[in-house]
Protein backbone atom coordinates (compact mmCIF):
# COMPACT_ATOMS: atom_id res chain seq x y z
CA UNK A 1 0.00 0.00 0.00
CA UNK A 2 1.40 3.43 -0.91
CA UNK A 3 2.00 5.97 1.85
CA UNK A 4 -0.76 8.18 0.44
CA UNK A 5 -3.22 5.28 0.53
CA UNK A 6 -2.07 4.44 4.09
CA UNK A 7 -2.61 8.00 5.33
CA UNK A 8 -5.94 8.19 3.48
CA UNK A 9 -7.20 4.95 5.02
CA UNK A 10 -6.07 5.97 8.53
CA UNK A 11 -7.70 9.35 8.02
CA UNK A 12 -10.94 7.85 6.74
CA UNK A 13 -11.37 5.49 9.68
CA UNK A 14 -9.87 7.91 12.19
CA UNK A 15 -12.70 10.40 11.81
CA UNK A 16 -16.19 10.19 13.26
CA UNK A 17 -17.47 10.38 9.72
CA UNK A 18 -16.55 6.68 9.38
CA UNK A 19 -19.39 5.82 11.78
CA UNK A 20 -21.81 7.04 9.10
CA UNK A 21 -20.82 4.01 7.04
CA UNK A 22 -22.51 1.57 9.43
CA UNK A 23 -26.25 2.40 9.76
CA UNK A 24 -27.33 2.14 6.11
CA UNK A 25 -25.83 -1.30 5.36
CA UNK A 26 -27.17 -2.56 8.71
CA UNK A 27 -30.64 -1.21 7.87
CA UNK A 28 -30.54 -2.94 4.47
CA UNK A 29 -29.59 -6.34 5.90
CA UNK A 30 -31.95 -5.86 8.85
CA UNK A 31 -34.96 -5.16 6.61
CA UNK A 32 -34.16 -8.14 4.38
CA UNK A 33 -33.80 -10.40 7.42
CA UNK A 34 -37.07 -9.12 8.90
CA UNK A 35 -39.02 -9.72 5.66
CA UNK A 36 -37.47 -13.16 5.25
CA UNK A 37 -38.13 -14.18 8.86
CA UNK A 38 -41.81 -13.21 8.51
CA UNK A 39 -42.02 -15.15 5.21
CA UNK A 40 -43.09 -12.09 3.22
CA UNK A 41 -42.90 -13.01 -0.50
CA UNK A 42 -39.77 -11.55 -2.13
CA UNK A 43 -41.91 -10.10 -4.94
CA UNK A 44 -43.47 -7.76 -2.34
CA UNK A 45 -40.30 -6.46 -0.69
CA UNK A 46 -37.43 -7.35 -3.06
CA UNK A 47 -37.58 -4.36 -5.41
CA UNK A 48 -38.22 -1.63 -2.80
CA UNK A 49 -35.52 -2.93 -0.44
CA UNK A 50 -32.84 -3.99 -2.95
CA UNK A 51 -33.32 -1.21 -5.52
CA UNK A 52 -35.20 1.51 -3.62
CA UNK A 53 -32.95 1.31 -0.57
CA UNK A 54 -29.84 -0.68 -1.61
CA UNK A 55 -29.00 0.72 -5.05
CA UNK A 56 -30.74 4.11 -4.87
CA UNK A 57 -29.64 5.10 -1.34
CA UNK A 58 -27.03 2.85 0.33
CA UNK A 59 -24.58 2.62 -2.59
CA UNK A 60 -24.58 6.29 -3.66
CA UNK A 61 -24.67 7.70 -0.11
CA UNK A 62 -21.84 5.44 1.12
CA UNK A 63 -19.83 6.32 -2.02
CA UNK A 64 -20.55 10.01 -1.36
CA UNK A 65 -19.34 9.83 2.26
CA UNK A 66 -16.20 7.94 1.29
CA UNK A 67 -15.53 9.63 -2.07
CA UNK A 68 -15.64 13.13 -0.63
CA UNK A 69 -13.92 11.99 2.59
CA UNK A 70 -10.70 10.69 1.03
CA UNK A 71 -9.72 14.08 -0.39
CA UNK A 72 -12.35 16.67 0.54
CA UNK A 73 -11.72 16.48 4.28
CA UNK A 74 -7.97 16.97 3.71
CA UNK A 75 -8.74 19.97 1.49
CA UNK A 76 -11.03 21.36 4.22
CA UNK A 77 -8.62 20.96 7.13
CA UNK A 78 -5.50 21.86 5.13
CA UNK A 79 -3.62 18.58 5.72
CA UNK A 80 -3.51 17.94 1.97
CA UNK A 81 -0.58 20.35 1.74
CA UNK A 82 1.67 17.77 3.43
CA UNK A 83 1.00 15.36 0.59
CA UNK A 84 1.17 17.96 -2.16
CA UNK A 85 4.60 19.28 -1.09
CA UNK A 86 6.19 16.06 -2.29
CA UNK A 87 7.81 15.38 -5.67
CA UNK A 88 5.06 12.93 -6.63
CA UNK A 89 3.03 12.98 -9.84
CA UNK A 90 -0.47 14.22 -8.98
CA UNK A 91 -1.80 11.20 -10.86
CA UNK A 92 -0.33 8.91 -8.17
CA UNK A 93 -2.05 10.88 -5.40
CA UNK A 94 -5.45 10.74 -7.12
CA UNK A 95 -5.12 7.05 -8.01
CA UNK A 96 -4.16 6.14 -4.44
CA UNK A 97 -7.09 8.07 -2.98
CA UNK A 98 -9.52 6.80 -5.62
CA UNK A 99 -8.32 3.23 -4.96
CA UNK A 100 -9.07 3.58 -1.25
CA UNK A 101 -12.49 5.13 -1.97
CA UNK A 102 -13.45 2.37 -4.40
CA UNK A 103 -12.33 -0.50 -2.16
CA UNK A 104 -14.01 0.91 0.97
CA UNK A 105 -17.27 1.82 -0.83
CA UNK A 106 -17.40 -1.45 -2.76
CA UNK A 107 -16.81 -3.63 0.30
CA UNK A 108 -19.18 -1.60 2.49
CA UNK A 109 -21.98 -1.87 -0.10
CA UNK A 110 -21.33 -5.17 -1.91
CA UNK A 111 -21.38 -7.33 1.23
CA UNK A 112 -24.79 -6.18 2.57
CA UNK A 113 -26.23 -6.14 -0.98
CA UNK A 114 -25.04 -9.71 -1.51
CA UNK A 115 -26.64 -10.82 1.78
CA UNK A 116 -29.90 -8.96 1.04
CA UNK A 117 -29.97 -10.34 -2.55
CA UNK A 118 -29.36 -13.88 -1.32
CA UNK A 119 -32.19 -13.50 1.21
CA UNK A 120 -34.56 -12.09 -1.43
CA UNK A 121 -33.86 -14.55 -4.22
CA UNK A 122 -30.71 -16.53 -4.74
CA UNK A 123 -26.96 -16.33 -4.40
CA UNK A 124 -26.94 -15.40 -8.11
CA UNK A 125 -29.03 -12.30 -7.37
CA UNK A 126 -26.64 -11.51 -4.52
CA UNK A 127 -23.63 -11.84 -6.83
CA UNK A 128 -25.31 -9.64 -9.47
CA UNK A 129 -26.01 -6.92 -6.91
CA UNK A 130 -22.49 -7.17 -5.44
CA UNK A 131 -20.81 -6.90 -8.87
CA UNK A 132 -23.13 -4.02 -9.82
CA UNK A 133 -22.27 -2.29 -6.54
CA UNK A 134 -18.54 -2.73 -7.17
CA UNK A 135 -18.79 -1.22 -10.67
CA UNK A 136 -21.07 1.53 -9.35
CA UNK A 137 -18.55 2.27 -6.56
CA UNK A 138 -15.91 2.98 -9.24
CA UNK A 139 -18.05 5.51 -11.12
CA UNK A 140 -19.55 7.13 -8.01
CA UNK A 141 -16.15 7.41 -6.27
CA UNK A 142 -14.46 9.03 -9.28
CA UNK A 143 -17.38 11.46 -9.63
CA UNK A 144 -17.51 12.44 -5.94
CA UNK A 145 -13.72 12.68 -5.71
CA UNK A 146 -13.77 15.17 -8.58
CA UNK A 147 -16.61 17.08 -6.88
CA UNK A 148 -14.44 17.52 -3.77
CA UNK A 149 -11.83 19.27 -5.92
CA UNK A 150 -14.11 21.53 -7.94
CA UNK A 151 -16.47 22.77 -5.24
CA UNK A 152 -16.33 23.71 -1.57
CA UNK A 153 -19.65 21.91 -1.00
CA UNK A 154 -19.12 18.46 -2.52
CA UNK A 155 -21.49 16.68 -0.11
CA UNK A 156 -24.34 19.05 -0.86
CA UNK A 157 -23.85 18.82 -4.62
CA UNK A 158 -23.47 15.04 -4.38
CA UNK A 159 -26.76 14.80 -2.48
CA UNK A 160 -28.45 16.97 -5.12
CA UNK A 161 -27.20 14.56 -7.79
CA UNK A 162 -28.39 11.49 -5.83
CA UNK A 163 -31.74 12.84 -4.68
CA UNK A 164 -32.76 15.17 -7.52
CA UNK A 165 -31.08 13.79 -10.64
CA UNK A 166 -31.18 10.05 -9.93
CA UNK A 167 -34.02 9.94 -7.40
CA UNK A 168 -36.51 12.43 -8.78
CA UNK A 169 -35.74 13.12 -12.43
CA UNK A 170 -34.64 9.51 -13.00
CA UNK A 171 -38.13 8.29 -12.01
CA UNK A 172 -40.10 10.68 -14.18
CA UNK A 173 -37.88 11.92 -17.02
CA UNK A 174 -36.70 8.92 -19.00
CA UNK A 175 -33.89 10.82 -20.78
CA UNK A 176 -32.02 11.46 -17.54
CA UNK A 177 -31.59 7.71 -16.94
CA UNK A 178 -28.86 7.61 -19.59
CA UNK A 179 -26.73 9.76 -17.28
CA UNK A 180 -27.59 7.91 -14.08
CA UNK A 181 -24.98 5.68 -12.41
CA UNK A 182 -27.79 3.99 -10.47
CA UNK A 183 -29.34 2.81 -13.75
CA UNK A 184 -26.02 1.36 -14.95
CA UNK A 185 -25.72 -0.58 -11.69
CA UNK A 186 -29.26 -1.98 -12.10
CA UNK A 187 -28.39 -3.02 -15.66
CA UNK A 188 -25.22 -4.87 -14.55
CA UNK A 189 -27.02 -6.58 -11.65
CA UNK A 190 -29.97 -7.53 -13.89
CA UNK A 191 -27.73 -9.00 -16.63
CA UNK A 192 -25.76 -11.10 -14.15
CA UNK A 193 -28.70 -12.33 -12.04
CA UNK A 194 -31.54 -12.41 -14.62
CA UNK A 195 -33.86 -11.73 -11.68
CA UNK A 196 -37.46 -10.54 -12.04
CA UNK A 197 -36.88 -8.20 -9.12
CA UNK A 198 -34.62 -5.98 -11.22
CA UNK A 199 -35.75 -4.02 -14.28
CA UNK A 200 -32.96 -2.58 -16.47
CA UNK A 201 -33.88 0.64 -18.24
CA UNK A 202 -30.51 1.24 -19.90
CA UNK A 203 -28.89 -1.15 -22.39
CA UNK A 204 -25.73 -3.01 -21.38
CA UNK A 205 -23.43 -1.34 -23.97
CA UNK A 206 -24.59 2.12 -22.85
CA UNK A 207 -24.07 1.16 -19.19
CA UNK A 208 -20.56 -0.20 -19.88
CA UNK A 209 -19.41 2.69 -22.07
CA UNK A 210 -20.79 5.43 -19.83
CA UNK A 211 -19.52 3.80 -16.60
CA UNK A 212 -16.01 3.67 -18.08
CA UNK A 213 -16.32 7.21 -19.46
CA UNK A 214 -17.47 8.64 -16.13
CA UNK A 215 -14.79 6.80 -14.14
CA UNK A 216 -11.91 7.63 -16.48
CA UNK A 217 -13.13 11.14 -17.35
CA UNK A 218 -13.62 12.17 -13.72
CA UNK A 219 -10.24 10.68 -12.74
CA UNK A 220 -8.40 12.53 -15.51
CA UNK A 221 -10.20 15.77 -14.61
CA UNK A 222 -9.35 15.29 -10.91
CA UNK A 223 -5.64 14.76 -11.73
CA UNK A 224 -5.61 17.94 -13.81
CA UNK A 225 -7.45 19.85 -11.11
CA UNK A 226 -5.01 18.72 -8.43
CA UNK A 227 -2.07 19.88 -10.58
CA UNK A 228 -3.47 23.41 -10.30
CA UNK A 229 -4.42 23.17 -6.64
CA UNK A 230 -4.26 26.67 -5.11
CA UNK A 231 -4.12 27.80 -1.54
CA UNK A 232 -5.74 31.08 -0.66
CA UNK A 233 -3.77 33.33 1.67
CA UNK A 234 -5.26 33.43 5.12
CA UNK A 235 -3.48 36.44 6.42
CA UNK A 236 -3.26 38.42 3.24
Amino acid at each position, binding site marked *: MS*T*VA*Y*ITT*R*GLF*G*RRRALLLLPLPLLLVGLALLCRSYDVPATDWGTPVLVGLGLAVVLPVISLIVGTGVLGSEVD*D*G*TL*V*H*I*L*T*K*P*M*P*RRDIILAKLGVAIVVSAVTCAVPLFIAGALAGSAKLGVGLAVGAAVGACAYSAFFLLLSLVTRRPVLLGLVYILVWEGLLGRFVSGTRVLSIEQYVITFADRISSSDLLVARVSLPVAVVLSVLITVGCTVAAVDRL*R*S*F*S*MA*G*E*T*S
Partner: protein
Amino acid sequence: MQNVSRWYGNVVAVNDITMRLEPGVTGLLGPNGAGKTTVLHMMAGFLNPSKGTVTLDDKPTWRNPEVYRHLGLVNEREAVHGFLTAEEFVVANAKMHKLPDPKAAAARALDLVEMTEAKDRRIGTYSKGMRQRTRVAAALVHNPRVLLLDEPFNGMDPRQRMHMMTLLHSLGERGHTILFSSHILEEVEQVSGTVQVIVAGRLAASGDYREIRRLMTNRPHVFAVQSSDDRRLAVALIAEKSVSGVEIDATGLTVRASDYGSFTRALPRIALGEGIRLRKLLPSDESLESVFSYLLEA
Protein backbone atom coordinates in the same frame (compact mmCIF):
# COMPACT_ATOMS: atom_id res chain seq x y z
CA MET B 1 10.34 36.21 -8.41
CA GLN B 2 10.39 38.33 -11.50
CA ASN B 3 7.83 41.13 -11.90
CA VAL B 4 5.21 39.08 -10.11
CA SER B 5 1.68 40.31 -9.58
CA ARG B 6 -1.29 38.46 -8.24
CA TRP B 7 -4.82 39.76 -8.26
CA TYR B 8 -8.18 38.38 -7.20
CA GLY B 9 -10.84 40.00 -9.39
CA ASN B 10 -10.30 43.72 -8.92
CA VAL B 11 -8.19 43.34 -5.79
CA VAL B 12 -4.43 43.41 -6.29
CA ALA B 13 -2.80 41.30 -3.55
CA VAL B 14 0.76 41.46 -4.86
CA ASN B 15 1.95 44.19 -7.17
CA ASP B 16 4.96 43.80 -9.46
CA ILE B 17 7.39 42.25 -7.00
CA THR B 18 10.88 41.22 -8.05
CA MET B 19 12.82 39.35 -5.39
CA ARG B 20 15.79 37.02 -5.37
CA LEU B 21 16.61 34.92 -2.34
CA GLU B 22 20.18 34.02 -1.49
CA PRO B 23 21.43 31.40 0.99
CA GLY B 24 20.95 32.53 4.57
CA VAL B 25 17.95 33.62 6.59
CA THR B 26 15.66 36.29 5.20
CA GLY B 27 12.66 37.75 6.99
CA LEU B 28 9.55 38.52 4.99
CA LEU B 29 8.09 41.42 6.86
CA GLY B 30 4.89 43.32 6.51
CA PRO B 31 1.72 44.27 8.34
CA ASN B 32 -1.24 41.88 8.32
CA GLY B 33 -2.85 41.81 4.90
CA ALA B 34 0.27 43.09 3.12
CA GLY B 35 0.55 40.05 0.84
CA LYS B 36 3.20 37.96 2.65
CA THR B 37 1.24 34.72 2.54
CA THR B 38 0.36 35.25 -1.12
CA VAL B 39 4.07 35.70 -1.91
CA LEU B 40 4.98 32.55 0.05
CA HIS B 41 2.24 30.52 -1.63
CA MET B 42 3.41 31.62 -5.08
CA MET B 43 7.00 30.72 -4.17
CA ALA B 44 5.84 27.31 -2.93
CA GLY B 45 3.92 26.58 -6.15
CA PHE B 46 0.49 26.80 -4.55
CA LEU B 47 -0.65 29.88 -6.36
CA ASN B 48 -0.33 30.84 -9.98
CA PRO B 49 1.02 34.38 -10.46
CA SER B 50 -1.39 36.51 -12.52
CA LYS B 51 1.70 38.08 -14.10
CA GLY B 52 5.43 37.39 -13.95
CA THR B 53 7.39 34.26 -13.10
CA VAL B 54 8.38 32.46 -9.90
CA THR B 55 11.27 30.05 -10.34
CA LEU B 56 13.54 27.83 -8.28
CA ASP B 57 16.81 27.05 -10.08
CA ASP B 58 15.27 28.55 -13.25
CA LYS B 59 12.33 26.12 -13.15
CA PRO B 60 8.81 27.39 -12.49
CA THR B 61 7.31 26.41 -9.14
CA TRP B 62 3.70 26.39 -10.40
CA ARG B 63 2.45 22.97 -11.57
CA ASN B 64 5.91 21.49 -11.04
CA PRO B 65 6.00 18.99 -8.13
CA GLU B 66 9.70 18.29 -8.83
CA VAL B 67 10.61 21.54 -7.04
CA TYR B 68 9.68 19.88 -3.73
CA ARG B 69 12.88 17.83 -3.92
CA HIS B 70 14.68 21.03 -2.92
CA LEU B 71 11.92 22.98 -1.21
CA GLY B 72 10.18 22.61 2.14
CA LEU B 73 7.11 24.52 3.26
CA VAL B 74 5.65 25.19 6.68
CA ASN B 75 2.47 27.11 6.10
CA GLU B 76 0.58 29.11 8.66
CA ARG B 77 -2.42 26.82 8.94
CA GLU B 78 -1.55 24.38 11.69
CA ALA B 79 -3.20 21.38 10.08
CA VAL B 80 -1.52 18.07 10.78
CA HIS B 81 -2.84 14.51 10.60
CA GLY B 82 -3.80 14.34 14.28
CA PHE B 83 -4.44 10.58 14.20
CA LEU B 84 -0.75 9.84 13.50
CA THR B 85 2.13 10.01 15.97
CA ALA B 86 4.90 12.52 15.20
CA GLU B 87 7.18 9.67 14.16
CA GLU B 88 4.56 8.10 11.86
CA PHE B 89 3.88 11.51 10.35
CA VAL B 90 7.51 12.41 9.67
CA VAL B 91 8.35 8.88 8.44
CA ALA B 92 5.34 9.11 6.06
CA ASN B 93 6.72 12.41 4.76
CA ALA B 94 10.16 10.81 4.28
CA LYS B 95 8.59 7.89 2.40
CA MET B 96 6.67 10.23 0.11
CA HIS B 97 10.03 11.87 -0.67
CA LYS B 98 11.30 8.36 -1.46
CA LEU B 99 14.30 8.79 0.88
CA PRO B 100 16.56 5.73 1.09
CA ASP B 101 16.23 5.39 4.90
CA PRO B 102 12.96 7.09 5.94
CA LYS B 103 13.22 6.10 9.62
CA ALA B 104 16.73 7.50 10.04
CA ALA B 105 15.80 10.70 8.19
CA ALA B 106 12.71 11.10 10.39
CA ALA B 107 14.73 10.51 13.56
CA ARG B 108 17.24 13.18 12.48
CA ALA B 109 14.50 15.71 11.69
CA LEU B 110 12.65 15.05 14.97
CA ASP B 111 15.90 15.44 16.88
CA LEU B 112 16.56 18.79 15.15
CA VAL B 113 13.29 20.19 16.49
CA GLU B 114 13.62 18.49 19.90
CA MET B 115 10.62 16.22 19.42
CA THR B 116 12.33 12.87 19.95
CA GLU B 117 10.90 12.35 23.43
CA ALA B 118 7.29 12.94 22.41
CA LYS B 119 7.50 11.21 19.01
CA ASP B 120 5.31 8.25 20.00
CA ARG B 121 2.32 10.34 21.08
CA ARG B 122 -0.55 11.13 18.70
CA ILE B 123 -0.19 14.61 17.18
CA GLY B 124 -3.77 15.34 18.22
CA THR B 125 -2.62 15.41 21.86
CA TYR B 126 0.18 17.98 21.24
CA SER B 127 0.30 21.63 22.20
CA LYS B 128 0.29 24.22 19.42
CA GLY B 129 4.06 24.66 19.66
CA MET B 130 4.71 20.90 19.48
CA ARG B 131 2.51 20.58 16.41
CA GLN B 132 4.41 23.44 14.83
CA ARG B 133 7.76 21.77 15.52
CA THR B 134 6.46 18.49 14.12
CA ARG B 135 5.48 20.29 10.92
CA VAL B 136 8.93 21.85 10.74
CA ALA B 137 10.47 18.36 11.14
CA ALA B 138 8.30 17.09 8.28
CA ALA B 139 9.38 20.01 6.08
CA LEU B 140 13.06 19.39 6.92
CA VAL B 141 13.06 15.61 6.60
CA HIS B 142 14.51 15.66 3.06
CA ASN B 143 17.08 18.34 3.99
CA PRO B 144 15.76 20.89 1.46
CA ARG B 145 17.99 23.70 0.19
CA VAL B 146 15.09 26.13 0.43
CA LEU B 147 12.73 26.34 3.38
CA LEU B 148 9.70 28.63 3.42
CA LEU B 149 7.93 29.26 6.71
CA ASP B 150 4.78 31.29 7.22
CA GLU B 151 4.64 32.80 10.73
CA PRO B 152 6.72 29.93 12.18
CA PHE B 153 6.82 31.25 15.77
CA ASN B 154 3.07 31.34 16.25
CA GLY B 155 2.01 29.43 19.33
CA MET B 156 5.52 28.74 20.58
CA ASP B 157 6.57 29.49 24.14
CA PRO B 158 9.71 31.64 24.62
CA ARG B 159 12.05 28.64 25.00
CA GLN B 160 10.70 26.93 21.88
CA ARG B 161 10.86 30.25 20.05
CA MET B 162 14.51 30.66 20.99
CA HIS B 163 15.25 27.10 19.90
CA MET B 164 13.52 27.63 16.55
CA MET B 165 15.46 30.86 16.01
CA THR B 166 18.74 29.04 16.70
CA LEU B 167 17.70 26.26 14.31
CA LEU B 168 16.90 28.72 11.52
CA HIS B 169 20.21 30.50 12.17
CA SER B 170 22.21 27.30 11.94
CA LEU B 171 20.39 26.18 8.79
CA GLY B 172 21.12 29.56 7.22
CA GLU B 173 24.78 29.33 8.20
CA ARG B 174 24.99 25.89 6.61
CA GLY B 175 23.97 27.39 3.27
CA HIS B 176 20.22 26.75 3.27
CA THR B 177 17.98 29.47 1.92
CA ILE B 178 15.41 30.25 4.59
CA LEU B 179 12.53 32.67 4.14
CA PHE B 180 10.15 33.20 7.00
CA SER B 181 7.28 35.63 7.23
CA SER B 182 6.33 37.52 10.33
CA HIS B 183 4.55 40.66 11.37
CA ILE B 184 6.41 40.71 14.72
CA LEU B 185 9.46 42.91 14.34
CA GLU B 186 11.40 41.52 17.31
CA GLU B 187 11.23 38.02 15.80
CA VAL B 188 12.67 39.15 12.48
CA GLU B 189 15.28 41.33 14.16
CA GLN B 190 16.55 38.43 16.26
CA VAL B 191 16.67 35.88 13.46
CA SER B 192 17.75 37.81 10.43
CA GLY B 193 19.39 41.05 9.37
CA THR B 194 18.18 40.62 5.79
CA VAL B 195 14.57 41.54 5.21
CA GLN B 196 12.10 41.83 2.40
CA VAL B 197 9.50 44.36 3.45
CA ILE B 198 6.09 44.19 1.81
CA VAL B 199 3.62 47.00 2.28
CA ALA B 200 0.21 46.96 0.55
CA GLY B 201 1.29 44.28 -1.93
CA ARG B 202 4.46 46.10 -3.00
CA LEU B 203 8.07 45.41 -2.11
CA ALA B 204 8.90 48.47 -0.01
CA ALA B 205 12.52 47.57 0.76
CA SER B 206 14.94 44.71 0.39
CA GLY B 207 18.30 43.93 2.01
CA ASP B 208 19.97 44.41 5.40
CA TYR B 209 17.67 46.66 7.40
CA ARG B 210 20.58 48.65 8.84
CA GLU B 211 21.75 49.39 5.30
CA ILE B 212 18.18 50.28 4.33
CA ARG B 213 18.09 52.75 7.21
CA ARG B 214 21.31 54.41 6.09
CA LEU B 215 19.92 54.86 2.59
CA MET B 216 16.95 56.80 3.94
CA THR B 217 18.76 60.12 3.59
CA ASN B 218 15.57 62.17 3.83
CA ARG B 219 15.22 61.19 7.51
CA PRO B 220 17.73 62.44 10.10
CA HIS B 221 19.70 59.68 11.80
CA VAL B 222 19.33 59.67 15.55
CA PHE B 223 22.31 58.96 17.82
CA ALA B 224 22.59 58.68 21.57
CA VAL B 225 25.85 60.26 22.75
CA GLN B 226 27.43 60.40 26.20
CA SER B 227 30.62 62.30 26.93
CA SER B 228 32.70 63.84 29.69
CA ASP B 229 31.01 67.23 29.04
CA ASP B 230 27.67 66.86 27.24
CA ARG B 231 26.74 70.56 27.34
CA ARG B 232 29.99 71.76 25.74
CA LEU B 233 29.83 68.95 23.16
CA ALA B 234 26.25 69.99 22.28
CA VAL B 235 27.39 73.56 21.61
CA ALA B 236 30.21 72.31 19.39
CA LEU B 237 28.01 69.85 17.53
CA ILE B 238 25.30 72.35 16.63
CA ALA B 239 27.89 74.25 14.58
CA GLU B 240 28.54 71.11 12.51
CA LYS B 241 26.80 71.14 9.09
CA SER B 242 25.66 67.51 9.19
CA VAL B 243 23.92 67.99 12.56
CA SER B 244 20.30 69.13 12.35
CA GLY B 245 19.44 69.09 16.06
CA VAL B 246 20.72 68.28 19.53
CA GLU B 247 18.72 67.52 22.66
CA ILE B 248 20.22 67.33 26.09
CA ASP B 249 18.85 65.47 29.09
CA ALA B 250 20.06 63.64 32.17
CA THR B 251 21.17 60.56 30.21
CA GLY B 252 23.21 62.46 27.65
CA LEU B 253 22.70 63.88 24.17
CA THR B 254 20.29 62.91 21.42
CA VAL B 255 21.80 64.09 18.15
CA ARG B 256 19.93 64.23 14.84
CA ALA B 257 22.24 64.07 11.85
CA SER B 258 21.22 64.59 8.25
CA ASP B 259 24.22 62.64 6.90
CA TYR B 260 25.28 59.42 8.60
CA GLY B 261 28.80 59.32 7.16
CA SER B 262 29.68 63.01 7.65
CA PHE B 263 28.48 63.00 11.25
CA THR B 264 30.29 59.84 12.30
CA ARG B 265 33.50 61.25 10.78
CA ALA B 266 33.03 64.72 12.30
CA LEU B 267 32.17 63.65 15.85
CA PRO B 268 35.61 62.29 16.89
CA ARG B 269 37.30 65.30 15.29
CA ILE B 270 35.07 67.73 17.20
CA ALA B 271 35.47 65.84 20.48
CA LEU B 272 39.24 65.78 20.09
CA GLY B 273 39.34 69.48 19.25
CA GLU B 274 37.28 70.35 22.35
CA GLY B 275 39.21 67.97 24.60
CA ILE B 276 36.04 66.00 25.41
CA ARG B 277 36.08 62.26 26.04
CA LEU B 278 33.33 60.30 24.26
CA ARG B 279 31.80 57.57 26.43
CA LYS B 280 28.97 56.28 24.24
CA LEU B 281 27.86 56.60 20.63
CA LEU B 282 24.84 54.54 19.63
CA PRO B 283 22.62 54.82 16.54
CA SER B 284 19.23 54.78 18.27
CA ASP B 285 16.91 54.50 15.29
CA GLU B 286 18.58 51.65 13.42
CA SER B 287 16.26 49.09 14.94
CA LEU B 288 14.02 47.20 12.58
CA GLU B 289 11.05 48.85 14.25
CA SER B 290 12.28 52.33 13.25
CA VAL B 291 13.05 51.21 9.69
CA PHE B 292 9.68 49.53 9.40
CA SER B 293 7.72 52.50 10.71
CA TYR B 294 9.61 54.82 8.34
CA LEU B 295 8.75 52.53 5.42
CA LEU B 296 5.09 52.40 6.42
CA GLU B 297 4.95 56.18 6.64
CA ALA B 298 6.65 56.64 3.27
